[in-house]
């Protein structure tokens, strides 16, 4: 089985994440990390590889030069190879364009299973996996908390608003997994050293066969008109319980007409 895992570099959720009101884009000067859910996607891919002899795992990202670090992380965890989509003309792409670029890289390489995170922590659009299935003309099986492959059948539990449903389809497929799928392993020292020697294929607009007029911020389908920062919350009343705190709180809520 040929498995591709999509990993995205995102601002660290532990840091101060900002939108830049002048460029109207995510301020990527802050600390960046591989999105946690994508590390979990790499983990489940490695588990599937171990259970299916002869399988390969390729980590794929579209992002600036620096996003090579995210690929190295996947390689250090155990992936075999990496693909890096990097081009100034791709910067500022929206989800529709990102899915076009990723599809252009994936389609000619014939993956059986593409594994993505269900939702990125920066954009939170949760759109790229479904869009990719649409572009590749393969089935989608998304928002999974468990994932099994048996022969050419892929199945799992899809988490919905009211519980979960068992879902199933045939390979090839695009799946997305949520944060309950697995705990990501830590790369070993040997893994980190070995990652430096693993192949990384670098693809630009020309290699992808995409026209410059289709990609990047200037040609995006969705446009941001305006960005405003929300004012910080101002400090409230903090009381230490002396036996009357619950009553004080009830008074406060009643005064605010919340009870």
């Amino acid at each position, binding site marked *: 089985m040929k498995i591709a895992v999509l990993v995205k570099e995102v601002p660290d959720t532990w840091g101060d994440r900002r939108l830049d009101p002048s460029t109207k884009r995510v301020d990527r000067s802050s600390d960046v990390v591989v999105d946690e859910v994508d590390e979990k996607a790499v983990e489940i891919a490695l588990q599937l590889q171990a259970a299916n002899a002869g399988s390969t795992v390729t980590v794929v990202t579209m992002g600036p030069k620096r996003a090579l670090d995210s690929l190295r992380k996947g390689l250090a965890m155990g992936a075999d190879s990496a693909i890096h989509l990097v081009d100034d003309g791709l910067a500022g792409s929206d989800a529709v364009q990102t899915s076009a670029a990723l599809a252009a890289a994936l389609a000619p390489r014939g993956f059986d299973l593409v594994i993505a995170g269900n939702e990125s922590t920066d954009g939170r659009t949760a759109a790229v996996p479904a869009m990719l299935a649409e572009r590749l003309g393969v089935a989608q099986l998304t928002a999974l908390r468990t994932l099994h492959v048996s022969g050419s059948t892929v199945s799992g539990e899809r988490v919905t608003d009211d519980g979960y449903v068992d879902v199933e389809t045939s390979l090839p497929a695009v799946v997305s997994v949520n944060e309950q799928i697995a705990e990501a392993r830590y790369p070993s020292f040997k893994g980190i050293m070995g990652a430096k020697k693993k192949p990384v294929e670098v693809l630009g607009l020309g290699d992808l066969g995409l026209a410059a007029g289709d990609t990047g911020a200037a040609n*995006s389908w969705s446009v*941001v008109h305006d960005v405003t920062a929300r004012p910080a919350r101002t400090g409230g009343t903090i009381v230490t319980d002396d036996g009357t705190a619950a009553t004080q709180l009830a008074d406060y*809520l009643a005064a605010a007409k919340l009870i």
Partner: protein
Amino acid sequence: MSTILVLAEHTDSTPASNVAELLAAASQLGEPSAVVVTSSDAAALASALGSLGAATVQVATVPDGGALVTPLVAALAAAVAAGDVAAVLVGTSLDSREAAARLAVRVGGAYLSDAVGVGSSGDGITVTQQAFGGAFTVTSGAGRGIPIISMRPHSVEGSAPAGAGTVSALDISGDTAPTSRVTARHEKTEASTRPDLQAAEVVVSGGRGLGSQEKFVLVEELADAFGAAVGASRAAVDAGYVPQSYQVGQTGVTVSPNLYIAVGISGAIQHKAGMQTAKTIVAINKDGDAPIFDVADFGIVGDLFTVVPQLIEAVKARKG
């Protein structure tokens, strides 16, 4: 007047709870047309949609309800092809969001996710979205193609005047997209007596401080005293106190209630990202340095096992 398509999810003949609101938004932008995919007779559903404001109801009939997402995409694409469509509105269920995302690729449009408001201006149809847990407010729209918008519940005021609900059929028999199938459902079917988490006026959430699944009941009792929805931190979900659908935060549900009560939750940045736009925030935590107090309008430094039972009594007493 241009058509505004609304993807109307439903159970049998009853439109989902967000459909009235989507039709209300659509009526402010153009002529509302509901798109439904069903495996049974749509007459009763269509008349319900008409009374909620749909001028027309476009019906795609499928053999059974087992195929995921792709029939919705096919139906919406057929409806886009059939008329002068200025925008498409869907809700925030997984199926709706994914159908909208795929539609943007299929017909050429902008996918605008998780809108908290919609309107039109010199820039055409625009939406308001929140980024990074409400730390930023963003206005956006379509640069090319039509806007395809997923709308969060409770983001539209008012309702639409009743429409004719004139039924027409959509042919999706030519759809060739490979499908996935639901083989079993494990969803709560009995209507919960508690409000929906994302739409609730009051949310009471519990964290790791509750200590066990048994003791998490205290959070539920407090929620019931308020008539509130129950939420949780990721730590509480990971510890198995409640299902993941309860999780509030960065990788869970985003809530914006009038009142949010955090019980035994430290207030990690990823939790705050899902609740800091609540109008009033209350925190109960024994650690006075817990970051949740930075966003609290009223905080109690104390033991939740002492404070919460007293609070339940006080609330019940005041409600009479």
